[in-house]
């Protein structure tokens, strides 16, 4: 029969809908509503994976996100996701799952040899060995260790799916929808608060979906859940988010949720994101994350078929699956007894209840007796048999001496265990709250609230259905009150059954086996045993953080949720110190592993970062231009004609500009309008240069320093009126210059009557440069006499271009006659196309940033950020001329007087000419005095810019060189891997040294 472990009836699965899925290629059936884990169990499959280090066969242990063993790879539509918990994977038609960390197969895994040799692999073994011979580490040991480690196979192909993002605000966020969460959400919502209720599972209800032995307001718990969810769903102020994990609790009540939107669907609509990140600012948070059951640490506690008791109950009541036909229940607390009773109700044979406590509650014993279930009190499990599935359990009787006497063997095909309950304090801990030790329950519980949150129910160690419901209601009211100032008392539901249980145990259980031979696992996935923890202590590790890092306990994909408390207890015992003195590791986000794509969201491709384009962009694309990324901007790099490479294109562009005319898009340069009666005074303080005497209609080059004295930006500044300046900055520097100006203006000189406005995008800017520049623009400019006399170099004036208002600058970054036309951005395309057409008539060219760089280098103009690097002063750059000598202060003036900035041996800006005019230096190449310097020789400087100069028909370079200004004509060397290049130091101006070409 298919699904031999399926119950006859019951469970929340839809038996009318059957799905076929595969596990390691084998076809199986399950139902709608199953998880992969429940479907596998229904098919009698417990062995689902191999452990990390010893490759031991492992089975499903839990029914939740804390599952350490049942990690599988899921394949669909060419996408592959490793390490998904089978307990969380919802079944759909055609689901394809594979097991992990085994070779060649799950059943036969050669890695299992590690288990046989495990005596050589105690905790931290790799720190003690693999050191000889030295060369073996990289070549032999490490590759082997790496291949053996890891779990699933990494995805190979780019992800097809998309991921969404949503910011949300609410009054009360409730994380978790068990009894405490549901009642809290209800109370808060009825109080009028805006509520978001999320739960990591596909269905709301949490433990109520497992609870068969209780009633709420006379209803079965699951019916009460349905009714409550219906009520909440009908309210406008409530957002219900199933399949949504609150995975991160950040400062100031900022919570991140991961919603799985399509993962459970067989064929999702591709328009839907696979997952969605919710970033929620909540006024108040209710943490209702419940508690999870603790495994018992006994020898061979890791066999497939050994599960937590509550998981066994969940599989039965929620999924209609029996974990076995003959089940042993091992427990130290009351709650697990109910698992035995529920299974018994479904006809599963309970081989025995092995109760650690000498005197379990009489009421439970009585029920067991009535059902005819064998009870062994004062007993523990001391071992198990069965390699790929448990076959029997060894019993040990606890003696008053503390010793354990053998108590025989019980056959079984599954074992349910319960060491008690551990509150899930992850979110509380992430909120930076400090947990406190509760000796009564033997658990860490939330202490004082640090943020605006409260833990309820199991999450704070409170159990029992009625108590939990009441706690939830009260917390919901309280949260609403805190968030919106009012709350409404709601009618509490009355529950019967689901009482809180007593009991529990921590740490390794006593046994009568050879302690040095047996393995009792603390952390299943990472194969950490009780022995390992003790060894770490023996080796001097005293802090729990050291123990964790040394043994790797708690570092598996469940982040220690299952293992921490047992490890802590074992460490405490070994250290002979109380648990509270051992410390506790911090729970870090995410609560459960969270998809990278979720964090990355929509930021991919062109939406990875805004693509900023200028108005010429389309024209450039149409005309074959090549772009470079400059910050977020796309700037035209060069315009190759057919057959041209970059070098040829740039050479042609350079030549054309110098001989006739070129058109360049300068729109990306930063533009700041400085306006107000104190505008000149402000610039006087910001820039090194003097501004007060600059006449309206004139421009000046401005140099900007930081207060340390180093060059940070530059640009031409035009005075449009007494109280109005048009400032330009570098492209990359635009935001920081603006911010710096605001900073000084607002915080140092708030008395100045001046304001700054960014106009970078207000204008499109075309630079027309070259001897024919005037002829090119003349037909379109109205309102200005463009003659050299009327509108000389460094002029600015408002006019019109093709009837559109423009600001015309006569400036040059090429050394040629040049104009820059600023038109309102919308007309930028028109301007560009008009000018592009016009320059053709003059045999001109469009040119890009590379040619711009060459032309300015021929003239020795610096590029801030290329020829300067944040360590260059105006003196270094040979720009003392830019400093207003009479100014008492400007930003950077005092910095420039510091000892090292006025010392000898500073690197200074010079030109370099290679002895061989064909040899082009590499930018960044180092400069030395020795032709073949010894390794470690300090460099005299480095090449900052280097190009082939078509105008000079040779290569040129700019550099910073120690005392460079005094080295004119001297020979230095640029040592390269294959040779040393000799260079002559020159001034930085290579072309038209007297500057005649600008003034025509």
């Amino acid at each position, binding site marked *: 029969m298919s699904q031999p472990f399926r119950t006859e009836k019951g469970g929340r699965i839809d038996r009318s809908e059957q799905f076929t899925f595969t596990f390691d290629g084998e076809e199986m059936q399950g139902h709608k509503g199953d998880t992969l884990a429940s479907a596998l169990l229904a098919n009698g499959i417990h062995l689902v994976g191999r452990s990390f280090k010893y490759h031991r066969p492992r089975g499903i242990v839990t029914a939740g996100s804390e599952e350490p063993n049942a990690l599988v790879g899921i394949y669909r539509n060419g996408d592959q996701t490793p390490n998904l918990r089978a307990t969380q994977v919802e079944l759909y038609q055609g689901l394809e799952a594979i097991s992990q960390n085994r070779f060649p197969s799950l059943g036969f895994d050669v890695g299992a040899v590690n288990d046989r040799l495990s005596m050589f692999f105690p905790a931290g073994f790799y720190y003690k060995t693999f050191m000889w011979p030295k060369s073996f580490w990289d070549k032999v040991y490490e590759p082997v260790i790496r291949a053996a480690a890891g779990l699933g196979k990494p995805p190979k192909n780019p992800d097809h799916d998309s991921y969404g993002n949503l910011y949300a605000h609410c009054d009360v966020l409730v994380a978790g929808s068990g009894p405490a969460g549901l009642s809290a959400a209800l109370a808060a919502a009825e109080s009028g608060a805006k509520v978001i209720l999320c739960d990591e599972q596909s269905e709301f209800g949490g433990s109520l979906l497992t609870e068969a032995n209780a009633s709420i307001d006379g209803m079965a718990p699951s019916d009460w859940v349905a009714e409550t969810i219906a009520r909440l769903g009908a309210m406008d102020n409530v957002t219900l988010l199933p399949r949504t994990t609150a995975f991160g609790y950040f400062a100031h009540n900022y919570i991140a949720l991961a919603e799985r939107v399509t993962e459970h669907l067989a064929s999702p609509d591709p328009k839907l994101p696979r997952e969605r990140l919710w970033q929620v600012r909540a006024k108040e948070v209710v943490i209702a994350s419940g508690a999870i059951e603790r495994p018992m640490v006994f020898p061979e506690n890791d066999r497939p078929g050994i599960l937590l008791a509550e998981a066994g109950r969940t599989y039965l009541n929620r999924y209609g699956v029996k974990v076995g036909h003959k089940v042993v229940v091992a427990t130290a607390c009351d709650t697990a007894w109910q698992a035995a009773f529920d299974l018994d109700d479904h006809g599963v044979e309970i081989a025995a209840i092995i109760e650690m406590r000498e005197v379990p509650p009489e009421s439970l014993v009585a029920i067991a007796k009535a059902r005819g279930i064998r009870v062994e009190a004062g007993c523990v499990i001391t071992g198990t048999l069965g390699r790929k599935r448990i076959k029997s359990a060894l019993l040990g009787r606890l003696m008053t001496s503390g010793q354990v006497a053998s108590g025989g063997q019980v056959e079984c095909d599954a074992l349910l265990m319960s060491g008690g309950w551990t509150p899930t304090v992850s979110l509380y801990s992430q909120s930076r709250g400090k947990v406190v030790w509760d000796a009564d329950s033997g658990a860490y519980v939330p202490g004082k609230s640090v943020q605006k949150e409260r833990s309820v129910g199991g999450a704070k160690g409170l159990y029992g259905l009625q108590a939990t419901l009441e706690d939830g209601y009260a917390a919901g009211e309280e949260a609403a009150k805190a968030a919106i100032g009012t709350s409404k008392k709601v009618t509490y539901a009355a529950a019967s059954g689901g009482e809180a249980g007593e009991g529990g145990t921590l740490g390794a259980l006593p046994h009568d086996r050879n302690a040095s031979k047996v393995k009792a696992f603390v952390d299943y996935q990472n194969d950490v045993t009780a022995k390992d923890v003790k060894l770490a202590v023996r080796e001097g590790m005293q802090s729990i953080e050291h123990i964790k890092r040394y043994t790797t306990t708690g570092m598996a994909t469940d982040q220690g949720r299952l293992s921490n408390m047992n490890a802590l207890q074992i460490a405490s015992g070994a250290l002979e110190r109380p648990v509270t003195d051992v410390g506790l590791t911090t729970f870090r986000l995410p609560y459960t592993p969270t998809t990278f794509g979720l964090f990355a969201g929509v930021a991919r491709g062109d*939406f990875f970062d805004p693509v900023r384009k200028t108005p010429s962009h389309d024209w450039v694309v149409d005309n074959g231009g090549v772009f470079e990324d400059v910050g977020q901007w796309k700037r035209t790099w060069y315009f190759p004609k057919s057959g041209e490479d970059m070098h040829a294109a740039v050479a042609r562009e350079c030549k054309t500009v110098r001989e006739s005319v070129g058109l360049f898009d300068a729109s990306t340069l930063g533009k700041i309008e400085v306006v107000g009666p104190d505008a000149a005074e402000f610039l006087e303080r910001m820039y090194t240069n003097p501004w007060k005497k600059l006449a309206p209609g004139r421009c000046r080059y401005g140099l900007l320093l930081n207060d340390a004295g180093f060059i940070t930006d530059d640009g031409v500044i035009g005075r449009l009126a007494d109280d109005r300046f048009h400032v330009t900055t570098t492209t990359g520097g635009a935001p920081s210059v603006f911010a710096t100006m605001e900073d000084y203006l607002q915080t140092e000189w708030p008395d100045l009557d001046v304001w700054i406005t*960014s106009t970078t995008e207000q204008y499109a800017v075309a630079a027309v440069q070259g001897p024919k520049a005037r002829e090119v623009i003349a037909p379109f400019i109205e309102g200005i006499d463009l003659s050299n006399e009327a509108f000389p170099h460094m002029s600015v004036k408002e006019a019109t271009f093709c009837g559109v208002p423009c600001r015309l600058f006569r400036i040059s970054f090429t050394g040629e006659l040049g104009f820059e036309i600023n038109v309102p951005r919308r007309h930028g395309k028109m301007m560009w196309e008009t000018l592009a057409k016009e320059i053709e008539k003059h045999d001109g060219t469009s040119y890009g940033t590379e040619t711009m760089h060459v032309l300015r280098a021929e003239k020795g103009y610096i590029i801030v950020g290329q020829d300067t690097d944040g360590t260059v002063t105006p003196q270094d750059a040979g720009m003392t001329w830019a400093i207003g000598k009479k100014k008492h202060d400007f930003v950077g003036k005092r910095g420039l007087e510091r000892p090292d900035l006025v010392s000898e041996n500073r690197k200074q800006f010079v030109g370099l000419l290679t002895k061989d005019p064909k040899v082009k230096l590499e930018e960044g190449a180092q400069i030395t005095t020795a032709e073949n310097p010894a390794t470690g020789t300090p460099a005299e400087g480095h090449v900052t810019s280097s190009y082939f100069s078509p105008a000079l028909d040779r290569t040129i370079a700019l550099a910073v060189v120690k005392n460079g200004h005094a080295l004119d004509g001297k020979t230095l060397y640029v040592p390269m891997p294959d040779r040393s290049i000799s260079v002559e130091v020159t001034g930085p101006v290579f072309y038209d040294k007297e500057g005649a070409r600008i003034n025509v």
Partner: protein
Amino acid sequence: MSDVLANDLITPDAGVSPLLSQSDVSILKAAPIARLSFRAREAALANAGTAFGVPLPTQPLSSEIGAKRAALWMGPDEWTLLAPEEDLETLFETIETALGDQPHALVDISERSEAIIVSGEKAVWLLNTGIFVDFSIEEFPVGTVSRTIFHKSPVMIWRTGADTFVVEAWVSFMDYVSGLLVQSAQELTAA
């Protein structure tokens, strides 16, 4: 009131087809408009308001509207003044003249940004895919204007109706902003 304004001053660009047209949300490109940045200390506000035609709001994040005019509070000494684009030059002159020697800064920023109109019952949802501001009507009532961040781009949001928002961004960011909004809206049409 503000919905009226959207029809009055911020109008869909007639020549451009909608960027997004779904039953629950649409995105329309707004027609060009005159935008002036006005900066001044308090003393100059009254004159400026008179010259502009509506008073400059002093309540943070608020807007004042009048016939073919809107004044948006951008900061304690900064306003964006909106008017039909044909009024740009006269408006500029009028304000400059009215203020005379009173210290202030008036700068034409008409072309610095572009606007889109996002409207529909899913407008808030759509904006919240990239903006972390609480757009509930209590927190962000009609008439509220605020600069903020949309994913990785600075934007300005102006709520002109319960379900209508004007979203402005610097021109070179608009492809990014509108592109992402359109993309994010796709899932609303999923089965």
